[in-house]
């Protein structure tokens, strides 16, 4: 049986892949890396790219990561991805949608902030009105 290495790909918002592989390919900021079992300990910074996991017998899985860190121990590869989505799922429409949502959310936050300020101004105005009202009553009385 071919030698295998344990591979874990995780992002802050969930686990993406965990399993045994014969070979792992990733792109560091310096260039393409191929990691076979019993590789020397390595820490590398990854650029936004594809991480491919060769599971042997022709099974190749690929994951898109938008940057991250790769740690290699002789029997263990860990990819700490910044935000990772499956490469197959990654199409232009989804990316556009995410961007639009983000922008909308930003706009929404703005509105929320405006609302809070408006509320503060309103309560101030109400307090002023009440004070004026009271003054009037005092004058009349």
């Amino acid at each position, binding site marked *: 049986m071919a030698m295998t290495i344990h591979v*874990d790909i*995780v*992002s*802050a*918002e*969930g*686990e993406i892949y965990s399993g045994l592989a014969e070979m792992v390919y990733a792109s*560091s*900021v*310096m260039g393409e*890396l191929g990691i076979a079992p019993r590789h*020397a*300990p*390595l*820490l*590398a*910074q990854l650029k936004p790219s594809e991480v491919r996991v060769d599971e042997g017998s022709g099974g190749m899985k690929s994951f898109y990561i938008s940057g991250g*860190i790769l*740690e290699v*121990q002789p029997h263990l590869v*860990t990819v*700490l991805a*910044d*935000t990772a989505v499956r490469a197959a799922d990654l199409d232009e429409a989804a990316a556009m949608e995410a961007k639009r949502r983000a922008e909308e*959310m930003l706009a929404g*936050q703005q509105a*929320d902030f405006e609302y809070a300020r408006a509320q503060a101004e309103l309560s101030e105005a109400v307090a002023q009105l009440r004070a004026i009202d009271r003054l009037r009553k005092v004058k009349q009385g």
Partner: protein
Amino acid sequence: MAGAKEIRTQIASIQNTQKITSAMEMVAAAKMRKAQQRMLATRPYAEKMRSVIGHLQLAHPEYRAAIMREREVRRIGYIIVSSDRGLCGGLNSNLFRHLMRELKEHRNQDHEIDFCIIGTKALAFFRRFGGRVIAHATHLGDAPHIEDLIGTVKVMLNAFESGEIDRVYVAYNRFVNTMTQTPSVEQLVPIAGEQDEKLKHHWDYIYEPDSKEVLDTLLTRYIEALVYQSVVENGACEQSARMVAMKSATDNAGGLIDELQLIYNKARQAAITQEISEIVSGAAAV
């Protein structure tokens, strides 16, 4: 029957409140389930991160990041994680009370304190309490993203690197179970690691592009991951605390309604009895 009418309107108003609290309870229960799943989803990353940092502490890196070195403490940074909304029982105030005790100790030792605040509740509290708030992030929503926190964490790390603050803590509510949340304060920076001297062999990583850059990135990610995890955990705490608080509010409203109903019935009966006796005595007089 003026008294009876007043009681009736009071009952109606309590019933309205009860409707609201029971709706909030159900919403919180649904959100709690999601928040707990989110909390579980962040665990693998944090575990892997911790194991990589563990490996790193066993290695003999050529570069020792400032973040890993202890130094004399004069100024302390606190990252405080709270909820954005209220009506979640004593969740936030328990955390603040716990913090106040600790802050008092630091004050006694003449340590100055800077705050980084996540969530509007803590912002409001520390605005009243005073203290230097150097950064804040609010309105993270039910599903916080790590991108929303990067800025806040970076402010603290920059202050640490430039020597303004010498230690950073994170304060948040730890999720034990649905009924129990415990306030906890943990040291973030310098990374508390035990230096193991009796290592079998001397080894170091190969770094790409170079040790300083990789280690700085890695340690920043590590801190970010810890803060993110505490935010997510605090979110799960918030929902479950709100669910429990709203449940007890609904129960209390039910108790009040029962009591008022009894008083109302008595008042009604007394009024009827009085009317009858008036009629009877009127008839007797004729």
